[in-house]
Each structure stands twice: as C-alpha cells, then as structure tokens.
C-alpha cells in the first residue's frame, strides 16, 4: 500500500510541473510563431492542389509519419492475431 501512495505523490509532483509548464507555452488562441503552418496553408493549394491542407500534410509533407502510423496499426494487428492464434499449426 505504501508503494502506491509514493507513486501517487510522485504523480502529483509531476502534475504540478506539468500545469506550471502548460501556462508558459503560449496563451490559448494566440500561437507564437506560425511560420511552418503559414507555409502549409499557402503552398498546399499551389504545389499539391489539394484543398484539405490537413490531408496534404498527412500524406505528402509528413507522409513518412503516416507510413509509420500504418506500421503501428499493422503491428497491433499482428500482435492481436498472434495472441489469439489457434495454437498447434
């Protein structure tokens, strides 16, 4: 029981650090620098002629993340199928 209390205390300390840091990022609704996102908003239509800027980021500007992401999905699939395999094969 003592270990669990220790862990909860550690979590509260971590939470305090987190909350203090969260205020310091930037006031809500007013992001500091927006250079990268302005580039995406301006050039998504012009270079890649796709209206949905988010999709153009997901599949073209940061397409390698999406490859990693479908790899994560494939990993979870292989693990689940391996976990529930029929046994003797």
């Amino acid at each position, binding site marked *: 029981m003592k270990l669990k209390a220790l862990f909860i205390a550690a979590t509260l300390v971590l939470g305090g650090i987190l909350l203090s840091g969260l205020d310091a990022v930037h006031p809500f609704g007013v992001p500091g620098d927006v250079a990268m996102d302005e580039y995406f908003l301006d050039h998504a239509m*012009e*270079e*890649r*002629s*796709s*209206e*949905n800027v*988010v*999709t*153009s980021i*997901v*599949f*073209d500007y940061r*397409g*390698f993340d*999406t*490859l990693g*992401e*479908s790899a994560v*999905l*494939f990993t*979870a*699939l292989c693990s*689940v*199928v391996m*976990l*529930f395999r*029929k*046994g*003797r094969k």
Partner: protein
Amino acid sequence: MRKPLSLVARTVCDLFAWFLIIFGVYVIIHGDVTPGGGFQGGAIVGSFMALLLVAHGGDRVLEWVKASIYWIMLFVGLMMFIGFGLRGIPEGAFFYNFLAVPHDVAKTMAHGLIPFSGTIGVMDIAVGIEVAGGLTVIILSMFRGIVLHDFADSRKETGHDG
C-alpha cells in the same frame, strides 16, 4: 455476446450497415477535398463488421464472413501505400509526390475541375482500404479470442516448462 439480438435490431442493422459502408467509402474518396481522409473513412467502414457482430451474435457471423477478403484488403492497401512511397525515389526523395499537377498546368484546366492532387488522393484510398481491412481483422480476431476461451485442446501448447 454470441446470441443474436431481437428481430427489430437485426433488421435495422442489416439496413443501416450498408449505408454505413457507402458513407465510409465517400469519406475515403473525398479525402483531399473535404475534411476526412483515409483513416477516418477506414474506421467507418471497419465499424460495419462490429455492427454485424453485435446484432447477429458472433457464431452466425463467424460462419458467414470470409476473413480472407479483409486480409487481401489489408495487404493491397499496405503494398499500394509503401509502393507509391518507394516509387517516389527515382523522381525525388522517398515519399515524393510525383503525380501532382503543377500549379501552372492546373490553372489552364477547365474552371470547376479540381486538379488531380497526385499521390495524396491515391495514398488516401490505399490507407482507407488498409484501415478498413485491418480494423475488421482486429475485431474478428478479438472476438474469436473471447470465444477461444472454450476451446479445450488449444489451451496448452506443448514445449513449455511451466
């Protein structure tokens, strides 16, 4: 979990499930034009199998469904996706969008025509197929895992010391 629901639920589910797929495919295909995309559309199509499992009870669905279709969908989607990625290497870097219509050409096209957005649209559909097949396979094997609880023979694999 394995007993089918009442007649009303089953008929409503039969009717609704197919419209679900149509909506899912719409979201996948219009990924680069309207908010949506491969993953969201694939998840919608993936929920088709979950709906059937709940409504019709597991045993009848497991006999009815052929899992190989979803495995083929999974691998077709994956291979298309990584294939288009690798196909970009000769032109530019690894994930280069070699099919995109450059802006000056897009201007000359007839007004109102949405120019082809290159590999974004194609990868969108590939990921949609892959996620739809993958989620269905996950749901089916998790369901088979719960049912597996009762298979007596496969409980213990030989070869363990424990």
